[in-house]
């Protein structure tokens, strides 16, 4: 009998944490999407004009019940207030179970939306079992009264064990857990990574290749810049002896010490040129008077020769 009471006492913090977690993830998604009605799930069952108020009401209800469960756990909310909050929680989960059943039959491709953008996988038996179990858990707390502190170490350990076991059960019933773990360990491929051009330029200027070839450049801002996949290309006007030339840098898009490749092109013919030896240091570096818009040089003719000058900066 004592065990049953202990099990009931474990439910209060667990239910409160789940309700507040659900509310926080929904609000987080809404905040990122810039709209309060961005959350999907059972709101998709309603007409478009009602989705926003329904989404707001659901989040508000979760917040209110979560806070209410905590506030009425002690002596402050004993009897009627506590029972109302716990009954409301049980009703919420019963309604949620029914709504998910309906959602599964009407819009099977939509996720439950229980934990915002983490709940995008379609509703399945796990998603359905979870609110049903939580409804039972909430009903078990109706006659519990105020939550008591553990009287002994053994009792505390038993309650902790129950909490852990229930958490494991809920984790098994939560497809969101896998999604959250994937997101935690996710690293975006370089092809999809958004990296500002200024950062690429800064990384280039810190590179050995830049220091080696800066003496040839006649401007410190590129005349052309574009990106393909993991590389950003920057073209600088240059002078090689008495010839107009262009130095092309290819910078690999990564945050630290990017790979830099470079080539020297004759601006008039489009032919690749050999690098001068030894490279001279540019007298203009660090001067601001050359920071101006540089007109693009004339388009080079087609085919460059073979044996292009190449070097890499690892």
């Amino acid at each position, binding site marked *: 009998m004592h065990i049953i009471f202990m099990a009931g006492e474990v439910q209060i913090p667990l239910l409160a944490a789940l309700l507040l977690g659900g509310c926080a993830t929904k609000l987080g998604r809404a905040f990122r999407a810039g709209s309060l009605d961005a959350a999907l799930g059972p709101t998709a069952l309603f007409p478009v004009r009602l989705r926003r108020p329904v989404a707001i009401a659901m989040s508000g209800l979760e917040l209110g019940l979560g806070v209410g469960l905590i506030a009425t756990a002690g002596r402050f909310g004993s009897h009627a207030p506590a029972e109302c909050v716990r009954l409301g929680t049980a009703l919420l989960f019963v309604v949620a179970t029914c709504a998910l059943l309906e959602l599964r039959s009407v819009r099977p491709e939509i996720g439950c939306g229980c934990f915002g953008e983490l709940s995008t996988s379609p509703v399945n038996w796990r998603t359905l079992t979870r609110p049903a179990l939580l409804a039972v858990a909430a009903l078990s707390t109706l006659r519990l009264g105020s939550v008591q502190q553990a009287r002994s170490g053994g009792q505390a350990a038993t309650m902790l064990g129950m909490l852990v076991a229930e958490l494991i059960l809920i984790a098994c019933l939560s497809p969101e857990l896998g999604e959250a773990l994937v997101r935690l360990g996710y690293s975006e*491929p370089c092809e*999809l990574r958004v990296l500002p051009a200024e950062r690429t330029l800064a990384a280039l200027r810190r590179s050995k290749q830049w220091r080696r070839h800066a003496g040839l450049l006649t401007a410190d801002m590129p005349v*052309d810049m574009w*990106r393909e996949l993991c590389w950003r290309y920057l073209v600088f006007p240059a002078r090689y002896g008495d010839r107009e030339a262009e130095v092309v840098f*290819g910078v690999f898009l990564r945050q630290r010490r990017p790979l830099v490749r470079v080539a020297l092109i004759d601006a008039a013919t489009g032919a690749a040129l050999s690098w001068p030896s030894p490279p001279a240091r540019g007298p203009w570096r660090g001067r601001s008077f050359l920071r101006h818009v540089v007109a693009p040089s004339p388009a080079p003719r087609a085919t460059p020769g073979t044996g292009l000058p190449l070097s890499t900066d690892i």
Partner: protein
Amino acid sequence: MLKARGDRGCCDRCAGAAGMADAARVARRRLFKDAVFGLTPDLAPDPGPLGREGDGPGASGQGPGSGPAEPGLTDAGRLPRAVTGTVLDVSPHVLVIGDLDGPGPEQRFTLTADAMTWRGGQAEPTGLHQGDQAVVRLHPSQRAVVDRIWANIGRVTGTIVEQGHDFVIVDEGAIRRRQTVRIPARAAGRIQVRFPTLQPGYLIDVIGLRQDDHLEGLIPATSQPAYPADRLPEPPLISGHVPDTISGSATWHEPTTGEPPGVLGAYYPALDPETGCVEDTIAGYPRGYARMPYLAVGSALMIRNDCSGTSCVLPVTGCAAVARLFNDRCVTCGTSPRGRVADLTQASFVALGGELDKGCFNATISIGR
């Protein structure tokens, strides 16, 4: 500017001219990229050295010219050709295409009994009118013989901004003017089956007859996504490197302002946000469903029509800001993965074997030179 009207095949190896882009700049970019990776143009491997860390001669230890095999480009001579222009004259056996106002020469093509014509529906070639805007696909083996004609075909793809009794006004992106689509009673049922929510905020994609100031919507080009345009679903996460080939739906668009009819090229859904779509600079504009590698105007795509097996290399000529809002599938032959991978010009779409009145073909793109 590479046009289908010229003598060159649809898919020349160096289709390095980009529709609206500065062709010289695009050519320079290709040259510079080759130089950076030590590649010799026209002999270089695709697409490995262009996009992967550690690829390329210097980093991988391979010599120039080594690497993945060159894409199996279809012989340009076997590709169907696309011709666009104004119908100047038509008889049961001859079609004359030209440019009413421009200096372009008249072109005469032979009409056979097999030639199919679309003008709001299947029609006889003699049903064409003088002044109709036509897109013509020539017979693959006989370049003077017409295979297929689409007359006055138009398409509106975008977000509904206003709904009337028998029309909707559609926003096609920041750089295109809003379009009016009138839906005649005979096509209303057909369109509403595929587009049940003709309300502001939802997406629409309709093909029909181009009129002076509106499109007469006749054919739904896809099924309407269930979400409003500003609430796109999260695209699936991609771990590791993006695959070398990406499959999805390839669609077509009408010539935009400044885009010459007949130009070969493709709008791409993921231009580099630093230099890409105008829409990227608008706060709150949806970024799109497709998670595709970032490219720039002038990048080359090899696009394969999975239905016909035809493929060719096309330059990226613009930003597919609206196409990236769709997570639909193409079901022309089988069911494609979700998302639109390219929005082709009419000439490119037809040259790749697409049927304009079907709206899409299942496509696989490879990113290369």
